[in-house]
């Protein structure tokens, strides 16, 4: 293991988050089994009191969980100087077989934590705990992911050795290999460009329609998820090329470095934020007719949709401006 402040922070926070999630799972289990708002029993009132505690602590826990996604990438990027062959986070994460699975899991947990926070925010605005069983069931579903992240991340950091020779991003994300990354970067750029702008246009359109009419929440949420996936593929396939102005460099991590103006951070933040708030609209839609939330959900959904539209729009503007001002001409390679 390499003693680096960010590694220690990530490991300790992950242990802390896992501990709280384990406790919350036990509590969630009790909620599923024993919650009965009509009862005035000692246990029911204890559960009511304890849910304030849990739903007050967990937003802070998940806020750090969300931040830890970026801290993990930043840490991997910072560590690349220690490994022979590594040029950025791509090489650091490839030092052992746990780096990339941890990254993917952190991305999944980012979205899950965000969705839970949306559910919790809305539930706390209902006078009769309208989503209590659902939100704690969701918490139960999340716990294995959080625990798996702890194990994978610990394995990744504990197995880091400074004498390991790793691969650079140029090798890992070249279109000539036989990995999933190679398949992605080998995707034809023109059809993907069309898919990117089309899906983004439809997402923005469905988002604006939802904001104006309050209908089509599921379509907008679905489009947000789809656009998120297409946007990530596009970063690999063609957006990165315009930023690097190199026809063969597809690395999704080098864009996080100072040499490229840290442009990766606003790109990832906007696309993740846009996807999360867009999917948040969908996760709330089934509860629009809940009596105690009928005044709350439409307003929250509208704010989420507006946030999503705005973030996706910023993402598109950054990408498009970068493509327009770049001297690089992709088509033909």
């Amino acid at each position, binding site marked *: 293991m390499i003693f680096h402040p960010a590694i220690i922070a990530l490991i300790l926070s992950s242990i802390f988050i896992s501990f709280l999630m384990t406790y919350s799972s036990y509590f969630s289990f009790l909620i599923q089994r024993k919650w009965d*708002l009509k009862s005035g029993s000692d246990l029911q*009132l204890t559960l009511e009191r304890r849910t*304030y505690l849990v739903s007050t602590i967990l937003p802070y826990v998940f806020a750090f969980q969300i931040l830890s996604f970026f801290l993990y990438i930043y840490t991997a990027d910072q560590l690349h100087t220690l490994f022979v062959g590594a040029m950025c986070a791509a090489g650091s994460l490839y030092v052992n077989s746990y780096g990339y699975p941890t990254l993917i899991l952190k991305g999944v947990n980012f979205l899950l934590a965000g969705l839970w926070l949306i559910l919790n925010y809305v539930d706390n605005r209902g006078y009769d705990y309208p989503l209590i069983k659902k939100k704690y069931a969701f918490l139960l579903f999340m716990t294995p992911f959080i625990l798996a992240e702890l194990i994978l991340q610990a394995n990744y950091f504990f197995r880091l050795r400074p004498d390991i020779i790793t691969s650079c991003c140029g090798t890992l994300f070249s279109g000539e290999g036989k990995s999933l990354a190679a398949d992605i970067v080998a995707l034809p750029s023109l059809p993907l460009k069309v898919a990117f702008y089309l899906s983004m246009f439809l997402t923005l359109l469905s988002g604006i329609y939802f904001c104006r009419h309050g209908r089509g929440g599921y379509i907008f949420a679905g489009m947000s998820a789809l656009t998120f996936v297409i946007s990530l593929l596009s970063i690999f396939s063609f957006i990165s090329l315009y930023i690097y102005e190199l026809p063969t460099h597809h690395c999704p991590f080098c864009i996080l470095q100072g040499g490229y103006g840290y442009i990766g951070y606003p790109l990832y933040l906007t696309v993740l934020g846009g996807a999360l708030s867009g999917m948040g609209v969908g996760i709330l839609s089934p509860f629009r007719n809940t009596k105690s939330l009928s005044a709350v959900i439409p307003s929250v959904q509208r704010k989420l949709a507006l946030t999503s539209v705005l973030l996706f729009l910023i993402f598109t503007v950054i990408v498009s401006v970068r493509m327009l001002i770049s001297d690089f001409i992709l088509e033909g390679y």
Partner: protein
Amino acid sequence: MIQLKNITKVFNQGKPNEFTAIDGVSLSIDSNKVTVFEGPSGSGKTTLLSLIGCMSRPTSGRIHLMDQEITSLPERFLTEIRRKTFGFVFQHFHLIQSITTLENVMLPAYPSGEKHSALRKRAMELLDLFNISSKATVKVKWLSGGEAQRVAIARALINNPSVIIADEPTAHLDTKLSLELLEILGKLKNNQKTVLIASHDPFIFESAIVERLIRIRDGKIDGRAA
């Protein structure tokens, strides 16, 4: 109408010093009447009033205010009910000594966001009602006991609550001031307020304005009289 269903309040539950302050109390309290909870010190009167007034939560049981069940409400909703429905007159008044009478009366209404001039006007009307408007700009620490008590009542009324809760209101008053208090409580009753009083002072519970007397002993209802 306030309804209590099998209310229990246990302090320090599960610890060696566990104490059951209220033990399975069920009762209905009519609106627009003066109800007195009478009982010796430590009988649970104050605890019961704090539960009714949403100042604390029961260990078990439910309380219904009109048609709404209030014990399960999340804190953000309880705060709203506490502010709009209940006015509290505490045994030791709990006025803020270093600010003026007027500011003390206005204070509970600040979170409502009401326009300051309208609030000030309403506070002055209340001080007028209790004949202490001349002391509006005087700091509370310079008021006499009787004046402080009237300020405490005015403060309890600033949000125009439907229920006034008074805990041992005559504990620190002489006979003259106690009579004055009863007169004020009578006015409140005539203004369609529900008045709940905890007291072990015969001066209060033998008064003609009291419409219902509930005796409490060891956290249980001992008997009722009207």
